C-alpha cells in the first residue's frame, strides 16, 4: 500500500447496503482519533446511523465534537451551497434571497453533478483548509458512490465556464492523489456484497481518479474447529455418543450440536465467497478482516470493539 490508511486525509467508506458501512466508518474515525488525529466523520446519506454508532444526538451540517479529537457532521447540500456561496462568491445576506436558494436547488437536482459536487466540494474543502487531519466519509452505497466521486470530472467536461468549473481543478488534485484520498469498500463474505465490491473496484479505477485504499471484510466467522476436531464432532453426532453426552451433561444437547453444524456450514459458505473476493481483487487493494463479534447491541461499545479489531489488522 502506497500510504498507510489512516495517514491519508480523506477516506470515502462505501459498500453494498447492509454490510456495516456506517459502523466501519465510525470505527475508523474512532481509531484515528484515539491515535491523536483530529478526525471529522461525515455522514452523507443522513439516515442517523452515525449518531447511533456513538449514541450521540442527531448530527447536523455544522460539525459537533463527539469525543476527544473526534467531530461528526451530516451532509446537507442546501447548507453546503449556502456556505459555498458565502465563502466563494462573497455573497452576503443570503438568507434574504431564500427563494433563490430554493430555485437553485431545483437546478442542482436536475443538472447532472451539481448536487454531488456540493458534497464532494465541502469534503475537499475541509481537507484543503486543513481543519482536520483526517476526514472519514460514510459515503453513499456502491450504486451511488461512483457518480459522486466522478462529479468534479463530469462538471469539468460539461460546464465550460463559471465558478463551479473553476473549483473542479483543486478538488481533482485532492481526489486523485493517493497520498491524500482513498476509497474503502466494506463487504461481508456473502455473494452479492463480494460481487458488488469487485464491480465497484473496477468502476472506481475506470470512472474516477480515486485510489482504492482498502477493502474491509466485515463479519468474518471464526473457524469453529481446529485440525482434526471436525472428525471428533462427526463422531459426537452419532446417536450413542450424543445420548452419552446428554446423559453426562443432564440436558438437551441436540440444539447445541445442530447449532454447531450450522456455524460450520455458514463459515464454509462464507470462506468460499472470501476466496472469490481475494482472487478477484488480486493485488488491487489491501484486505482488512473484522470478525463477527456476536454483539448484544449496536452502539458505542460495538464501535470500539470494531475499532480495536481494525487497529490489530493495521498492525498498531
Amino acid at each position, binding site marked *: 500500500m502506497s500510504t498507510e490508511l489512516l495517514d491519508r486525509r480523506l477516506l470515502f467508506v462505501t459498500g*453494498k447496503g*447492509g454490510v456495516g458501512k456506517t459502523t466501519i466508518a465510525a470505527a475508523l474515525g474512532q481509531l484515528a482519533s484515539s491515535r491523536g488525529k483530529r478526525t471529522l466523520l461525515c455522514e452523507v446519506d443522513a439516515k442517523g446511523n452515525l449518531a447511533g454508532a456513538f449514541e450521540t444526538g442527531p448530527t447536523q451540517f455544522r460539525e459537533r465534537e463527539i469525543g476527544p479529537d473526534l467531530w461528526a457532521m451530516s451532509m446537507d447540500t442546501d447548507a453546503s451551497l449556502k456556505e459555498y456561496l458565502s465563502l466563494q462568491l462573497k455573497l452576503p445576506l443570503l438568507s434574504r434571497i431564500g427563494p433563490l436558494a430554493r430555485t437553485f436547488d431545483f437546478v442542482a437536482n436536475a443538472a447532472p453533478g451539481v448536487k454531488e459536487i456540493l458534497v464532494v466540494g465541502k469534503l475537499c474543502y475541509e481537507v484543503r483548509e486543513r481543519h482536520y487531519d483526517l476526514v472519514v466519509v460514510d459515503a453513499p452505497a456502491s450504486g*451511488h458512490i461512483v457518480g459522486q466521486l466522478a462529479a468534479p470530472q463530469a462538471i469539468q467536461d460539461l460546464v465550460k465556464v463559471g465558478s463551479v468549473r473553476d473549483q473542479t481543478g483543486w478538488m481533482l488534485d485532492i481526489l486523485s492523489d493517493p497520498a491524500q484520498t482513498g476509497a474503502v469498500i466494506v463487504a461481508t463474505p456473502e455473494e452479492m456484497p463480494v460481487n458488488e465490491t469487485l464491480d465497484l473496484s473496477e468502476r472506481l479505477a475506470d470512472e474516477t481518479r480515486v485510489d482504492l485504499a482498502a477493502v474491509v471484510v466485515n463479519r468474518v466467522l471464526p473457524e469453529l474447529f481446529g485440525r482434526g476436531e471436525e472428525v471428533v464432532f462427526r463422531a*459426537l453426532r452419532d446417536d450413542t455418543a450424543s445420548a452419552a453426552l446428554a446423559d*453426562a451433561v443432564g440436558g438437551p444437547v441436540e440444539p447445541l450440536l445442530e447449532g454447531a453444524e450450522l456455524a460450520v456450514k455458514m463459515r464454509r459458505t462464507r470462506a468460499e465467497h472470501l476466496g472469490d473476493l481475494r482472487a478477484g481483487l488480486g493485488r488491487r487493494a489491501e484486505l482488512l478482516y473484522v470478525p463477527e463479534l456476536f454483539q448484544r447491541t449496536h452502539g458505542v461499545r460495538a464501535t470500539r470493539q470494531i475499532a480495536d479489531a481494525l487497529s490489530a489488522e493495521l498492525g498498531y
Partner: protein
Amino acid sequence: MTPKRRANGGTSLEPLLAAKEIVICCGSGGVGKTTTAASAAAMAAAHLGGKVLVITVDPARRLANALGLERFGNAETQVPPELFVEAGVEPRGELWAAMLDTKQSWDELVRAHAPDAATRDAILANPLYENITGRFVQSHDYIAMERLYEIHASGRYDLIVVDTPPTRNAIDFLEAPDRMADFFSSRLLRWLTVPARSRVFTMASKPFYTVADRILGSQFLQDIAEFFLLFQTMYDGFVERAQAVTRTLSDNRTTFVVVSTLEASPAREAEFFIDALASRKYPLGAVVINKALPALFLERGAKKVAERLCRDAGPLAERVAAAAPVGEVPQLARVLGEVGESYLNFQVVATREAEQRAELARHADVVATVPFADHDITDLAGLLELGGSLWR
C-alpha cells in the same frame, strides 16, 4: 382478508399473492429483497396459476441462472416450464421475468410521449439527457413505477411482483411520480425554458440568473434550458402518466411487502417504511423477515447445557469417551468447549433478533420469517424451497 396463521406464529403470503395484482417488495439494501420477490413469484406461478411476472432491478447472475435465463433484459422473458418440472413441481401457471433497464425504459418513454420524430431525436441525442436519466437519482425510482404501471395497464399478467431499486431512502420511489409531476409544472422550468430573446428579467428572476450565471456559466444554463424546452413538449403526457402511476400505487389491487433482516439498521428502516406507507394510506400486506437465525438457538435449557460444556469440558469428555467411540479425550474436551461457546455466541445474536422481531411484529401483524440459509440459491428448486417458508 384474515391472514392465515401458521404453527410457528408466522403468516403465509399465499392469500396475499392470490388476492392482489401488484406486490411491491421494498426494504433497505442487502436484506434479500430480490430473492424474496423472485421466490414469491415462483411460488405463485407454481401453486396459484395464472401468468406471473417478476420485475427485478439488478439480479445476481446466480439468480438469473436459477430462473434459467442467460441474462435478464428489459423485455419480459418466460422462465422455462421444464425448470419447474426439474424442481419436482408441476406448475399451474407461467413465470415470467424482466429486468429494469433505466436507460432503455427512459428511451421508450420519450419515444411514446415525444410529439414528433424531430423532438424525439433531439431529446435522445441531447448530452444532458443521458446524464439526467442516468444520474438523476430519482430517475430510477420514477422509471420503476412507470414501467410497473405500463405493464399492469397492458393486462398481460395476473400478478406482478416488483423488486424496488436500491434507493438512498426507501420511500423515495413512493414519491417519485408526484415529484416528476411537480418538476414538470415548476415555475423554474418555465423560467428556464423561456427563449432567451424574450426572457424578461423580472425582479424575482434576476438575482437567480445573476447567481446561476456566475456559478454555472451561461452556456451551461443555455444547454439546460434547451434540454428542458424539448422535454416540456412531453409535459401533458408525463404529468398525466405520473398521476396514473400514483393512483395505481394506492389501488386496492396493489399491496406492499416490506422485507428486512433482524439487524438494527435494516429493521429501523423497515419500521420507518411501514410508517411511511401508513401515512400515505398505501396498504401494507406483509413483513418478510429474512436470514433469521433458527429457533434452536433460543431453546429452553440449552443455555445451561452450553455453559456446562464450557465449564466442565474435561470431565464431560471423559464420561462420553467411556460410553462411545469419539476419539481422544483432550480433543473431545476442546470440541465440547467450542460447541458450547459457539452456541452461547449465537444465542446472544438470536436473542437480540427475537426482540427485533417482536418490535416489527408490533407494526404489522402479518409477519413471515425466512430462516437463515446456509447455502446460496442456485436453481429454481432453491427458490421454491425458500418460498416454502413464505407459504405454509
